[in-house]
């Protein structure tokens, strides 16, 4: 497919790997925020090709992974109510709650349906006016415009039987938390291309200036990442705390203003507790008061559920770049994509799932 296949060209990848190797005077420590980029790095072995010049530290950019345990438990509770149709992205099905997952709820008789888009969930509400339809609106800034549009449309069309369980997170406050940590080892960031497609580059320019650290906005294909890393290594070598956009084919400096307009109409910034990471001020989004009618947490009164995390999962350390998946004693043994202890083993954007898919047969010692 055009604009995909070209970005996987091995000859071009080799040229970029060699260039980075020549340019790096030392081994730089770089974090990629986005879990989609983590998967590309591990799948194509890019971290290993660059092992002498760049250490890749994986970031917390997996929306499924950081969705609070409480929200998973509330999702299961709402889905289990008689008459409810619970619609969700497929990734959320296997995420462990305190006591089972959405697949278990479905096995017990709950009507849980996987949808591709929040608009598909709204269509289910239109087909079934007699049922309560709840969509699990999770995601980063990239997904917020779609989820906000579904709520805006439901209000516009008077679909009173449609509500959303919102668990939305924002990237910049999480970067701030990582950089404020005295143990932070990250020297430069690959900024998330899809998030910047919506938000633009300005928030990262502020972070670069404030913390004196460079950011390169990059896409998701192997050449996107190698090109982004080549530019980032240049900035690091030259000591320049600047932002470069290497994904200009789809990311504009101002992002997508129309998309942000709907998000601002429907959602507002709030504090959020990230699973495995902890509370981060201003890092979440919630429905504005004028859309409270479409708020599933208010509609179903699920605030009082007690949640309990697995004690054997090191997802928190993995999500903060403090440990690699293979450092976990449960990795690939007690914790697999079929029987996960933590969300990063489930999601297609989780670091544990990437290592399990592409490196599970290797000795733990080989993990870098």
């Amino acid at each position, binding site marked *: *497919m*055009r*604009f995909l296949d*070209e*970005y996987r060209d091995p000859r*071009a990848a080799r*040229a*970029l790997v060699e*260039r980075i190797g*020549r*340019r790096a005077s030392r081994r730089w420590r770089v974090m990629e925020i986005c879990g989609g980029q983590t998967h590309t790095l591990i799948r194509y072995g890019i971290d290993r090709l660059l092992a002498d010049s760049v250490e890749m530290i994986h970031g917390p950019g997996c929306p499924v992974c950081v969705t609070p345990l409480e929200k998973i438990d509330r999702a299961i509770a709402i889905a289990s109510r008689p008459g409810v149709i619970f619609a969700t*992205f497929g990734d959320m099905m296997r995420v462990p709650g305190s006591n089972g997952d959405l697949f278990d709820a479905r096995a017990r008789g709950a009507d849980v349906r996987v949808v*591709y*888009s*929040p*608009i*598909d969930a709204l269509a289910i509400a239109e087909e079934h006016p007699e049922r309560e339809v709840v969509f699990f609106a999770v*995601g980063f800034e*990239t*997904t917020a*415009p*779609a989820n906000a*549009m579904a709520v805006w*449309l439901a209000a*516009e*069309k008077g679909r009173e039987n449609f509500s959303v369980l919102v668990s939305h997170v924002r990237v910049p406050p999480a970067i701030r938390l990582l950089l404020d940590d005295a143990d932070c080892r990250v020297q430069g960031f690959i900024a998330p291309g*899809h998030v910047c*497609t*919506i938000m633009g580059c300005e928030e990262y320019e502020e972070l670069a200036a404030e913390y004196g650290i460079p950011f390169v906005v990059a896409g998701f294909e192997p*050449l*996107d990442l190698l*090109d982004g890393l*080549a*530019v980032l290594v*240049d900035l690091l070598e030259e000591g320049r705390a600047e932002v*470069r956009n*290497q994904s*200009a*084919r*789809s*990311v*504009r400096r101002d992002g*997508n203003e*129309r*998309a942000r307009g*709907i998000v601002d109409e429907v959602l507002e910034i709030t504090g959020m507790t990230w699973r495995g990471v902890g509370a981060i001020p201003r890092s979440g989004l919630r429905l504005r008061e004028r859309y409270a009618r479409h708020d599933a947490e208010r509609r179903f009164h699920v605030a009082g559920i007690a949640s309990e995390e697995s004690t054997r999962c090191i997802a928190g350390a993995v999500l903060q770049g403090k440990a690699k998946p293979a450092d976990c004693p449960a990795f690939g043994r007690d914790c697999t994509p079929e029987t996960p202890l933590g969300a990063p083993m489930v999601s297609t954007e989780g670091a544990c799932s990437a290592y399990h898919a592409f490196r599970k047969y290797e000795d733990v010692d080989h993990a870098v």
Partner: protein
Amino acid sequence: MSVERDEIGLVHGKVQFGGVVRDVNLSYTPEARVGDYVVVHVGFAISRVDEDEARRVFEYLEEIDALEASELAGGASSPAGDNGA
């Protein structure tokens, strides 16, 4: 592949992904025209692909090739020059 408006004025289009065709909401990329490439996320086009920018990385790689060729021919230029970012 096609662009149309629905009953409440939202713009939709048919988008081909490899071999699969899907209905995509174009509310956030009203500039998209038939024949354009768009980045799609959960049923919404979030950006129109700028083809000139898309070619940039390949032009840069060709420059690297050219520089390496001139080095092999005995030139003294550094391969780690500015990348034009």
